[in-house]
Structures are given as structure tokens and as C-alpha cells.
């Protein structure tokens, strides 16, 4: 009886985990933070958050692309400016960055001087690799600035089993910093 139960459990487990090996990637959306929650995490001191849309000029766009070494997909960005008593206490940008197959949505919280305060994953859309939302990976970005390489295998260690997602988040954080420096901090 016990043996049958064990075999049955193993078969069931194999059947339920089979999609992990499938050729076609499974869309497996996990929402960890809503935008409101993410903004609270990214700019915790703010008592008011105001959206601040920015559109780079052709020249600024080229400048950002050169600093990132890649083309920008977005034509504009919406920064969220957090204030407390009328004083700016931080900024946040929601970034969509392509993971292995689907985009990862995460928020990058910045101090007014451009230092990273917080990075938090909001939506992860693949079955594997969501370990990048853990502090063990994301805490590596805290306190980094535009002068840091922000590159996996340089100053960021990727997570085993989430290599591509680690690259994507590092690239997205760098993009947020460069866009902030070019369009907000100037």
C-alpha cells in the first residue's frame, strides 16, 4: 500500500512538473508587488508621489544608448518623484526588461543624488528563475551609482538557475540609472 502511494505521488509530481521541460516556454505570471506597493518600497519616506514623464531628445537618446551600449526600446519614461513636506526624497522608475522569454517588471528606487536605494521585482512571468526577486540577489544593487559597472560577473553575482534573469535585472537597473542621470539629474 505504502509503495503504491509513493509511486503514485512520484508520478503525480512528474506530471505536474513536466511543463518545465517543454520546448514552448510557459507564461507563468506572478505578481509580487502592485505599483502602489512597489512605490512604497522604493521611496518609503515619501508622503506624496508624483509621476514625472520624460521624453529624451534624439541627442539624449543617442547619449543614453552609447552609455548603455544598446538600443533603447522605450520612447519615454515615467519617473515617480517622492516628496516629503515639499522636499524631494527620492525617485522611482518601473522598468520592463526582457528576461529569457518574457519581460520582468521591477522597480528601481533612487535617492535624489542618484544612488540606488532599492530594487524590487513586481511581476515575474516565467516559471523558472524567479529567485532573482530575493534579497540575496537584489541587495547587491543597494548603494550603487552610475560610476559602478553594474555588470554580472563584475560587481554583481548572478544567481545559479536564474542567469539570464540576473543579466536582465542588472541591465535594467543600469538603464534606470543612466536615464535618471541624463534626463532627471542632468
Amino acid at each position: 500500500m505504502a509503495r503504491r502511494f509513493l509511486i503514485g505521488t512520484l508520478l503525480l509530481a512528474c506530471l505536474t512538473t513536466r511543463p518545465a521541460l517543454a520546448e514552448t516556454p510557459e507564461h507563468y505570471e506572478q505578481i509580487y508587488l502592485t505599483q502602489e506597493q512597489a512605490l512604497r518600497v522604493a521611496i518609503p519616506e515619501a508622503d506624496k508621489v508624483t509621476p514625472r514623464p520624460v521624453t529624451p531628445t534624439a541627442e539624449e537618446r543617442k547619449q543614453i544608448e552609447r552609455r548603455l551600449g544598446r538600443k533603447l526600446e522605450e520612447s519615454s519614461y515615467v519617473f515617480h518623484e517622492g516628496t516629503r513636506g515639499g522636499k524631494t526624497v527620492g525617485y522611482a522608475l518601473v522598468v520592463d526588461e526582457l528576461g529569457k522569454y518574457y519581460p520582468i517588471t521591477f522597480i528601481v528606487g533612487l535617492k535624489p543624488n542618484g544612488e540606488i536605494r532599492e530594487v524590487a521585482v513586481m511581476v515575474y512571468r516565467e516559471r523558472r528563475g524567479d529567485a532573482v526577486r530575493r534579497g540575496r540577489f537584489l541587495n547587491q544593487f543597494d548603494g550603487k551609482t552610475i560610476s559602478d559597472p553594474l555588470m554580472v560577473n563584475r560587481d554583481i553575482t548572478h544567481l545559479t538557475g536564474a542567469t539570464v534573469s540576473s543579466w536582465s535585472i542588472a541591465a535594467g537597473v543600469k538603464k534606470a540609472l543612466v536615464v535618471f542621470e541624463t534626463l532627471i539629474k542632468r
Partner: protein
Amino acid sequence: MTKNMLLLHRWLGLVAGLLILVAAGTAIGLNHQDWFRKQPVMSDGPFSKYVLSTAVDPTDAQRILMGTNDGFYRSLDGGQSWEEVVLPVPAEQVGAIQFDPTQPGRVYVTFREIGLYRSEDHGDIWEEVGLPFYPPEGIHLSGLAIDGAGKLTLATTAGLYREGANGWESVGGAPDKPKASQALQLLYDLHDGRFWGTYGVPITDGVSVSLIVLVLSGYFLFFGREIRKRLARRKAAAKPPIEPQAPRAREKASV
């Protein structure tokens, strides 16, 4: 016979316990490779690394690109000074760099386990070139050639791919390679628990720690008993021998 079997069973158990310790310990190690990884030190230039590829821009001989085992560098002054090319992916194992002879400014670079990238502006801004396979999943890029018409030929660990009128075409090779790597990946996934999804890793860690505790406590019980036995024997041997007693008085009287 039974005694020999018990002895064999005991020693096989000890050896198996050692193997379980190794397997469980390495499973935990594989799951947490970052514990052992050192942060790489930033290099001053490409020459302290293994240089794997070099290319000179045909339109500007001062512009040189150089790829190493863990970096991609650019010189704008004929090699006097170098700067690291910024990329959205780790620039590792830069296998080939090719300037397109038909399109000034267009240059391709391959990263062995990452993919093929193209720049249209001599190497400032890069974009990924779509391939019919995904290099991080096992088919790695070994070399790149470009013909007079600007068409690419890509050497991979699964054979040759050529850019044709309808995109990439496979030109023979080893078609069973991806299957083999998938099987290997399955083995890895089963070993480190990732097969079972997000919670598989902590579960495997827990099982590994339990196995280690089980084996160590087994050793403690086994060797502890053996040590206690030996100590008792030694203690007994150290005691002075018991002298024979004189016969009692009543016994003497009865006699």
C-alpha cells in the same frame, strides 16, 4: 556466515555514508555556488586576460576591437589605450569579431555562451542578433565568418549555421547535441532540486542537511559505541588482578 554478512553490511554502510555525505554536501554547494565565487577584479586592459579575438575596422585602422575570456575592449588610437565596451550582457568568451566588408561601421561579435551581437556604428551601440537556438541553453558559439556579400557563417557546438535568404540554415553538424544537453540539464535539475520548481531548492537543501545529520549521527553512534567498548576494555585491563580469597570459617568448620 551471518557474522561475515554483518561485518560486510557494517563497512558497506560506512562507505555509503561517506558517499551520501559527499553527494549531499555537493548538492548544497551546487545550489549555493555564490558562496564560493570571488568577485572578479576589474582589469586595466585586455592583455592581462586571454585574448581570444581581435579585429581592425576596415574604415579606420586606429579602431581596434579585442575580445578576451572575460571582457570586450576597444581602442580608438591604434592600440595605445583601451576601454571596455559596454554591453547589456556579460562580455565573456568573445570568440569572434568580424567587420562587415559590405556595410561600413557594421560589426559582429560572438559571446560563446551568450549569443551573437551586431553594431551598426563601429561598436558603440549593440543589439542581439536572433538565432534559431538559445546559446545559454547549451549550443555554444565557436566561430564566425562573413562572406563578400555580407552573409554570416556561424560555427557552433551543434554544427554550422549559414545566413540564407530565409534566415539561418543548419549545414549539418551534430543534431543530437541539444538533446544530450537537455538530458544533462535534467540530471542537474533533479540533483539540485530545481526540477520541482521554486521550492525544490530549499527542499533539496533540507533533505541534504537531513542526510548529513543522519550519516553523522550514525557515525557518532557507531564509533561512540566502539570507543566506549575499547575504553571499557582498557579500564578493565588497567585494574589490579583479583586475588583468590581464603576459604570462610564455616566452610572450614564443616570440613
